[in-house]
Every structure is written in structure tokens, then in C-alpha cells.
């Protein structure tokens, strides 16, 4: 059975992770999502890369942190179908991976079709450290 966290502890954990994303990026890729966030990227193509603010998030409340405005990627790197993302630090170190889709995904886009030189805009980001 897992432990349960106090709200303060959960917020502390969330703040620590979110701080890793200060000035970092949401890198959106096509292809197969790697097994872990530490797995190297191979043939997946980087489609777009919106940028987190610095600091990336406001202080968490009860384990929930909300990002400051994310800077649009106004010149998408390549055309393709977005399937997953990797959030990275400003130094490009991996922080976490997640799914991309138009529903039931960690990152929900209006369309998974990214067009080179198009704009990808992430309008809100929340990070939640569950209490239990």
C-alpha cells in the first residue's frame, strides 16, 4: 500500500519537478513513444517545441502546479502526426514523457497533424502530484 502525502509535501514534490522545466520545452514527436523517459530518442521526428517560461510554473497548491504562459512554437520543425511528447529542461535533459492526442491523452491537441512552419500553441499546463 502506498503512502499518502500531506498537501504541503505534495506541493513540495510538485514544485521540485516543475522547477526542472524552467525555460525548458515541450518537445512533440511522431512515432513510437519510448519505454521510459530515460530512453533515448531514435527515429522519432521532432515536430514542434513550445517553450516553458522561467519560472515555468507558479507554486503548487495541494500538489497541483499551474504553468505560466507557454511560448508558442511559431515555426514547427517538421510535418507529421504527433503521438507523444517529452518535457525537457532548458539544457535538454529529459524530465517526463506523455501521450499526445485529440482526447484521452496527457497533451490534448486540436489536431495531431502538425505542419512544418505552422504554429503549435499550448494554452494551459497543470502538473499534479497526487496526495494518495
Amino acid at each position, binding site marked *: 500500500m502506498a503512502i499518502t*502525502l500531506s498537501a504541503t509535501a505534495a506541493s513540495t514534490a510538485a514544485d521540485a519537478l516543475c522547477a526542472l522545466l524552467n525555460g525548458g520545452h515541450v518537445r512533440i514527436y511522431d512515432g513510437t513513444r519510448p519505454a521510459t523517459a530515460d530512453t533515448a530518442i531514435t527515429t522519432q521526428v521532432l515536430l514542434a517545441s513550445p517553450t516553458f517560461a522561467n519560472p515555468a510554473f507558479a507554486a503548487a497548491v495541494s500538489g497541483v502546479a499551474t504553468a505560466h504562459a507557454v511560448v508558442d512554437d511559431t515555426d514547427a520543425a517538421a510535418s507529421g502526426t*504527433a503521438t507523444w511528447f517529452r518535457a525537457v529542461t532548458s539544457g535538454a535533459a529529459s524530465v517526463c514523457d506523455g501521450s499526445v492526442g485529440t482526447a484521452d491523452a496527457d*497533451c490534448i491537441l486540436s489536431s495531431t497533424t502538425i505542419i*512544418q512552419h505552422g504554429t*503549435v500553441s499550448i*494554452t494551459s*499546463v497543470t502538473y499534479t*502530484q497526487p496526495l494518495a
Partner: protein
Amino acid sequence: MPGGATAGTATVIGSLPYTDSDTSPTYLGVWYVYTPTSSLLTVVGGLVTGGSAFVTLVYSPDSATPYLPTVGRESEKPFQIPVVAGTPYYFNIQNDVGAYTFSLIAGPNLVAPTGSIFVNDDHPGYPLALLSVTDGSVLQFVYPFPAGENGDVIASGTHTGRVLVHDRATHHLKLYSPTFDLLTDLPYTSTGNPKYPIRADHTRSQFYVGKPVDPTHGSVATVTTVTSAGAFGPQTWVLPAAGLTAVATNVAGTILYFTGQTSSTNAPVKRWDLVNDVALSNLVAGLGATWLTLFDIIVLADDTIVVSYESTTAATAPVIKHYATDGSVLHTWTMTGDRSTDVHLASALDDPASVWIWTKMNPPPDLNFGTSHFTNVNTSDGTTISSVERREFETGIWLGITAPPPDPERFGHSFSCPFLILRAPVPAPGTVTGTMALTAPTSGDTSALALTGYVTPPRHPDAFCGRRP
């Protein structure tokens, strides 16, 4: 860099905007070629100035195949052409000698907010234009998109913003999402090459569509429905005669208003009982032998009816009649312009408080020919709430009988086509928006706290004997 002397030596345009000034040595002219690299670019605009006789012929995908043959044939007038990434477009500037300047620019790629004006082309091969309600300028083009004369938009409900248009090239009805993804393609063939009136229902999330000549029903006109999900309705109403230029229903969906039976000249606005499938008395008689009902009836959300009339008499402006359900005239709005071919109506965002009217300026030789007026009229008093005026581009060419001004519009909407007001915003092409809701992993007890330790057994009291007092 001068244009190439032949297609084989055409000067390559690498990126836009592009401008080149040089001298054409012969009437055969010079050549340029441009190959778009991004699918975000759907339309480019060209303009050649200099010698008054220069024309620009466009060829694609090779230098021998005319592309949209009329484009660029009028000297010193801007032209616009739809383009596809990876396809070469050759421009041959010819028919004169001497100095010229050629410019090629990218079409606009801006957000079209709710309330923007939709105008698709009546000539196949040209794009849909989404216009600013502020100044009529093109915000973005959508290409490819069907050409036709009729269309409407769902104004409320789950499918708000869906658009149904008639594709005159295929005689199909095509249903589009609010961002113009094709949802449904419905064959809807009639006889000849008619216009198929389309009008959205107020409350039932469907469209009423009409065939002016229905070969499966004795070649008279028929009306049926298409749901906003893209399916034909179960019923077809067979009207008394051939010919149909406009349809609309009352808010309850029990009465069909229609016109253009047999002829659009002096045509009454007729009524049909949709429940009992029988004719009713006419709403109103025609306005006279010099008046046409070529397009558009709209029933407002308060059940009043708006009808557009065009005159065949010179120096006569089009009129819009606003009727009560008993046919009495609530208002008559006399618009600007002389005759004004193809007057269209569109439901406004604040229906029934206002309605949109599209009229054209005077026919040739009037110097204003080629100009559109989009007017938002207050339906309670006929006052103009807002109005925009904009130059048309017919078959891709700046429309007018005079030379354009020194800094002309480089892009515009077609002269003739359906007209509606967007119910949902259309993002700039290539724009994807999203949200992220991330949750720390909890499966596999990754957030568990692992503590290890031991318990010391209690010691017998005798072990402490030596310390007892």
C-alpha cells in the same frame, strides 16, 4: 536578376515575398518559376507593372500546361492563384517589351474569428476566402474547397459552425466542419446545371436543400433535408413546378417559403405546408416584371422573412423586403448599386436583431464595377450597423474596368458565390492548440515510502537484579 529567356532557364524564385525589376527584351517575354515548399501556403498573389500591355501567363505543373488559363491575362492587375507545396508554377511575363516589375507574395494566413465573412468561389479550382468583417480583407484562404453558388451554416446546437455547400463541379452536397474539414460528401444530382438552394434550419440542426429540376419526380422541383451529421432526411417534398431559386422555413419547421418556380422574374414567394405536404397561399406576389428573385430568402429567429430582389432596369438599386408572416411589409431597404447581380443574404450572429446583405456596385462601364458591399442592417429600423466595401477577384483577377490604383488590394473574394457569417473561429492555417494535464505516476507504488527496521524483544526483569536497590 532578370527573368529567364525560356521556360527551361526560368529564374527560380526561392522565397516570398519576391520582387524583380528588369527589362523584357522581346514580346515573348521572360520566365520565372516558383515551387512552394510549405503546405501552409495555399495562395500566392502576382502583379506585373511597367508596360501597359504586359500580361502574365501561368503554367503548372510544367511550363506547357496552362494553369487556370485566364489568370494574369489582364495587364497591371493583381492576380491570385491557389498553390500546392512541391508543385512548380511558371510565370511568363510577355506581350510587351521594356521595363517591368514583377512581384509575388504569399496569401494571408490569419485567424478568422467568429463573425468573419465566408465567400467561396463560383469557379472550380479557386479557393474559399474568409474575410475580415472590419474591412473585408482576406484573412485566409481555404484550398481546395468546392466552388458553387449556394451554402449555409448551422447557427446553434452541437454542430454549430458546420457548413453545407453545393459543389457545382460534382453536383454533390458537401458538409464541412467549422474548420473546413470535409465530413460528408452526398451525391445530389439534378438535371442541367442549376443552382441548388440551401438554407439552415433554426432549431433542428439541419439544412433544407432544393433541386430545381428533379428527374426522379417528374422533373419538377423538390426539397429535402440534410442533417448536420451529414445524412439526408426521410422526406422529400415535391413542389408544383420546375425551378427553385431560394428556400427557407419558419422557425417551427412547418412552413417552407420558396421562390423561382418556373421563372425568377416577377416570382411570388410561395409557401408549402411541410407537415401535411400541401401548397399554401402565397406569402407575397412578385414585385413586377422587372424584378428578379435569383437568390436568398432568410427567415429570422423571430419568424419574419427577408427576401432579396434584383432589378433588370438600369439605374435601379436592389431592394430587400422584410415581411411579417402574413405577408405584410415590415420594411423595404433600398441598397446602393445599380441592379447588383447576385444579391445575397446571410444570417447574423445576433439574429433576429440584424441581417447581413451582400450587394455589388454598378455593372460596366461604371467605374465602381467590381466592388462588393457587405452591409449589416438593423432589422428593426433598417439602419446600417456596419458596412465594408471590398474589391472582388473574379477567376483570380482583380475585377474592374480601370487600372488598379498604385497600391491595389493583392487578394480578394470572388464576385459570385454563397455568403455566410462564421459561427466559430478558424485558426490560422497550420495552427494547433492544446492543453496538458500531467499527473505524477502512482502505479507500482513509485510514491511509496520504504522503511526498514527491527524490534528489540523485551528483557526479563531479573536481568536488572544487580541494579535493584
